[in-house]
């Protein structure tokens, strides 16, 4: 069968670009009539620009990126939508060996529990004269917003008590080793790479800060989605089938081998396999099987629930990226498109999630507070102390 749709997708070489790579390499794209070309990019800015000018039809994106583009917060802002999520979880906060020693002394447990680890960090921050410096991959990223949430809920003002800088992941392990930064929040394989080099310690993980939380999405310009509805549906089906395959632990070793290739992540397959399994080396000889560390399929992982977009929006408001107005909230809400997901997957997804009903649709954060998208104004107001 000749492919009906030629689709070019940009991706950043991270473990969570997996669905695109597997969709192509395992033939899920081909069987849906999609000839998928994958192009590796070195920055999120390139992903944004090349989607905006049409070099890429679709791309692996940080979940807040389509929202930021739609709200006009970025250069080359064109309306971008997320018709599918690509993974839940997958990030970790790694700190330098020196900072971890201080946190241990301040009572940090070995369990990754976000609450007590955050409390220990708060007491180190209080007792340290200079500002500790943490790196994230991009201002509009799950990494930035979950790190800030964790710090703030632990009693650390992320804008005044510490410094948060943006650094490309490949530079993070070295920056940690040389003291340029004290910690970072990043996806795999970059935590494991830093740990394998003996440069740090995983303090906590995204799954502990906010269980089953959104991380990456498939980003598409609204215009491309409107003009290519059949191609988009075919791609969403291929990605869904890829997610099902990726969700089987029995396939982790093969998936790691695919991702390891030089055209993709160009990283050791064994390291990627551990990242996919969630059995991570935390550093200092401790290996931990982390529950729900990286979720490609279970718990409706690929469903782009509109409340997820609203949570990211609430954090953009909280940290001063955008003013809270009914118009902005509505724009953000409309960025995630469960309707397109449903339309494409009606035939193959056994039970389509009802996660976009109003009200609380997700478990609470580590501080016990749940996000209720129906009470957005109240949620935003309640987070004011650090805004």
């Amino acid at each position, binding site marked *: 069968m000749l492919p009906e749709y030629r689709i070019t997708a940009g991706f950043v070489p991270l473990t969570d670009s997996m669905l695109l790579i597997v969709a192509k390499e395992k033939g899920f794209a081909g069987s849906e009539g999609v000839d998928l070309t994958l192009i590796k990019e070195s*920055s999120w*800015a390139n992903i944004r620009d090349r989607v905006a000018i049409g070099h890429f039809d679709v791309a692996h994106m940080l979940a807040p990126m389509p929202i930021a583009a739609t709200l006009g917060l970025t250069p080359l802002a064109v309306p971008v939508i997320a018709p599918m999520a690509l993974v839940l979880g997958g990030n970790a906060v790694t700190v330098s060996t020196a900072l971890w020693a201080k946190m241990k002394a301040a009572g940090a447990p070995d369990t990754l529990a976000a609450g007590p680890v955050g409390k220990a960090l708060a007491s180190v921050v209080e007792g340290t004269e200079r500002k500790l410096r943490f790196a994230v991959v991009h201002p509009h990223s799950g990494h930035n917003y979950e790190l800030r949430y964790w710090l703030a809920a632990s009693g650390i003002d992320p804008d005044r008590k510490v410094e948060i800088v943006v650094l490309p992941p490949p530079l993070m392990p070295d920056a940690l080793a040389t003291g340029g930064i004290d910690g970072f929040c990043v996806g795999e394989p970059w935590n494991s790479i830093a740990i394998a080099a003996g440069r740090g310690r995983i303090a906590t993980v995204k799954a502990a800060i906010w269980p089953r939380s959104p991380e990456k999405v498939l980003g598409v310009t609204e215009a491309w989605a409107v003009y290519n509805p059949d191609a988009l549906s075919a791609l969403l089906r291929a990605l869904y089938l890829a997610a099902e395959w990726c969700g089987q632990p029995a396939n982790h070793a093969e998936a790691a081998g695919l991702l390891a290739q030089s055209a993709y992540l160009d990283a050791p397959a064994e390291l990627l396999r551990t990242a996919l399994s969630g059995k991570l080396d935390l550093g200092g000889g401790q290996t931990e099987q982390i529950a729900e560390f990286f979720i490609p399929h279970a718990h409706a992982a690929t469903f782009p629930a509109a409340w997820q977009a609203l949570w990211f929006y609430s954090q953009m408001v909280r940290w001063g990226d955008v003013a809270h107005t009914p118009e902005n909230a509505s724009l953000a809400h409309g960025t995630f498109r469960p309707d397109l997901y449903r339309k494409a997957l009606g035939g193959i997804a056994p039970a389509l999630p009802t996660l976009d009903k109003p009200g609380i649709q997700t478990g609470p954060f580590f501080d016990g507070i749940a996000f209720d998208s129906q009470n957005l104004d109240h949620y935003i107001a309640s987070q004011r102390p650090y805004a």
Partner: protein
Amino acid sequence: MPHRDLSILIVDDNRLRATIIEDGLREAGHNTVTVINSSNDTARKIVETAPDVVVIDLENPNRDRLEHFFSLSRALKKPIAMFVDRSDAAEIEAAVDAGVSAYVVDGLKKERVKPILDMAISRFNAFARLSRELEEARSALEDRKIIDHAKAILIKNRGLSEADAYALLRRTAMNQNRKIVEIAQSLITASGLLEP
């Protein structure tokens, strides 16, 4: 009315390309040009040079870091925005196609910046063309060596003349719808396997 000389910062890890851009800018009369690579202390350099225009290659993973730095108004006296914001669609595409982007301080007139970006685009394209030609020349030379090696094997093992050895390689390639160099490479590999 004479303008103050613009301060231009080039961020490019490819030193040869950076030099080509720098030369172009100097030829166009820009005297305040600084070149840095991403391993330098970028933030400090930006504050020191207080650039009006920043030209950066798109392969540079530090783009996200630089954009974030530009967005912090306290870091710089004047905020820096992406040039292409205020440009036309064709210019944006030409820049991204060439693999370059530019940022300018707020309020700088488009007419003053456009020639700089145009120059950067054309030099980036020229550099890419040169690199491609060099790569093609290198790979042609490499192919030549492989074919010569295969011919030598045929001359030695089959007692063919050089012309006949080449004709055999070419005929086989045509019959199998493959390149001569591929047939030559297979022959070398096979002959290596058969050696004692």
